[in-house]
């Protein structure tokens, strides 16, 4: 039995405000989403967020190590309506540069506990100026014990992921 399995892969042929993976099988142990994305926001950076199972309620918590300057910080929040603030480049960043994000959904189909995520993201740029690059390591909970059957990668309101942004969702098997 293969350990890594491709559930879905999307490379955007045109701008899109979100990318969705639906009808996700519960047959894997974990999910991992590898994203290489960029925003059309007019600024230098933007964020990529996630929701699961179409839940837009205030059921997401998060804790993160974060930096976009010479002064890193730690942040935490509850009652969010989505997860994570993964840094991605926007229109003001170096052309043709996309952000890297790896997000694990651990034990996503275990209905005995809340779903946990861990995500690492980085947006490089040819700049040393504060707020023109960003790095984040974040953990979070979805305060619901349902199995995840849908993952949405979202842009901030009014913005789009640009063409060539890619998103690959993998199902990871355990033994047996």
């Amino acid at each position, binding site marked *: 039995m*293969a*350990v*890594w*399995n*491709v559930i879905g*892969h999307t490379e955007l042929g045109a701008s899109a405000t979100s990318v969705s993976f639906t009808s996700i099988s519960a047959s894997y142990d974990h999910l991992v989403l*590898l*994203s*290489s994305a960029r925003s059309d926001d007019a600024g230098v950076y933007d964020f990529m967020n996630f929701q699961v199972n179409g839940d837009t309620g205030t059921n997401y918590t998060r804790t993160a*190590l974060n*930096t976009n*300057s*010479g*002064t*890193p910080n730690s942040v935490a929040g509850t009652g969010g309506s989505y997860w994570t603030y993964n840094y991605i480049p926007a229109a003001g960043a*170096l052309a*043709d*540069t*996309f*952000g*890297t994000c*790896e997000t694990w959904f651990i034990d996503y189909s275990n209905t005995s506990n809340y779903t946990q995520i861990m995500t*690492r*993201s*980085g*947006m*490089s*740029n*040819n*700049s*040393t100026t504060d707020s023109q*690059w*960003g*790095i984040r*390591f974040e953990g979070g909970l979805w305060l619901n014990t349902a199995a995840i059957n849908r993952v949405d990668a979202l842009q901030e309101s009014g913005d789009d992921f640009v*063409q*060539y942004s*890619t998103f*690959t969702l*993998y199902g990871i098997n355990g033994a047996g």
Partner: protein
Amino acid sequence: MAIMEAIATTYLEADAASVTFDDIPSTYEHLQVRISARDVSNDFFESVYLQLGDTGHSPVDTGANYSRQYMYAYTSSIYSAAQTSSNDIWLGKIAAAKSDSAIYGPLIIDILDYANTNKNTTALGSNFNGYGDYVRLTVGLWDDTSVVNAVLIKGNGNVVRGTEMTLYGIKSS
């Protein structure tokens, strides 16, 4: 058909200035390098770097075409910084000669969409020095949209015998 495949593993039988994976096929979606390494330099830990290559740079680009941003914890404090026009992507620290000889430093590098010619190549590195007081997350940029066909990892001094590096390819279909 396996989705994640080992493209190559290098186990150093003798000290070496660097390890290069070249002739990387463009048939995968993503690359990942997993490293356990140690440096000969006369310190407790020493820096480790990444350079990338394509058909126009053999085996890798050594020009000032890289940017790198990072945050790290060293002892009880946390720091972050950025550099541009660099000759490599500085990914972190690995154990060196003053550390216990059994200590090596781990490093995982993710290089997404490495064969997409619409994108500059970026790398995300996660590192621990092994010595016990330094952990780091780095993002780096190679300002080049060519297909990556070579990955070079080097220390500040030589990397020592017993260092092991494996390059994996991850498919998307």
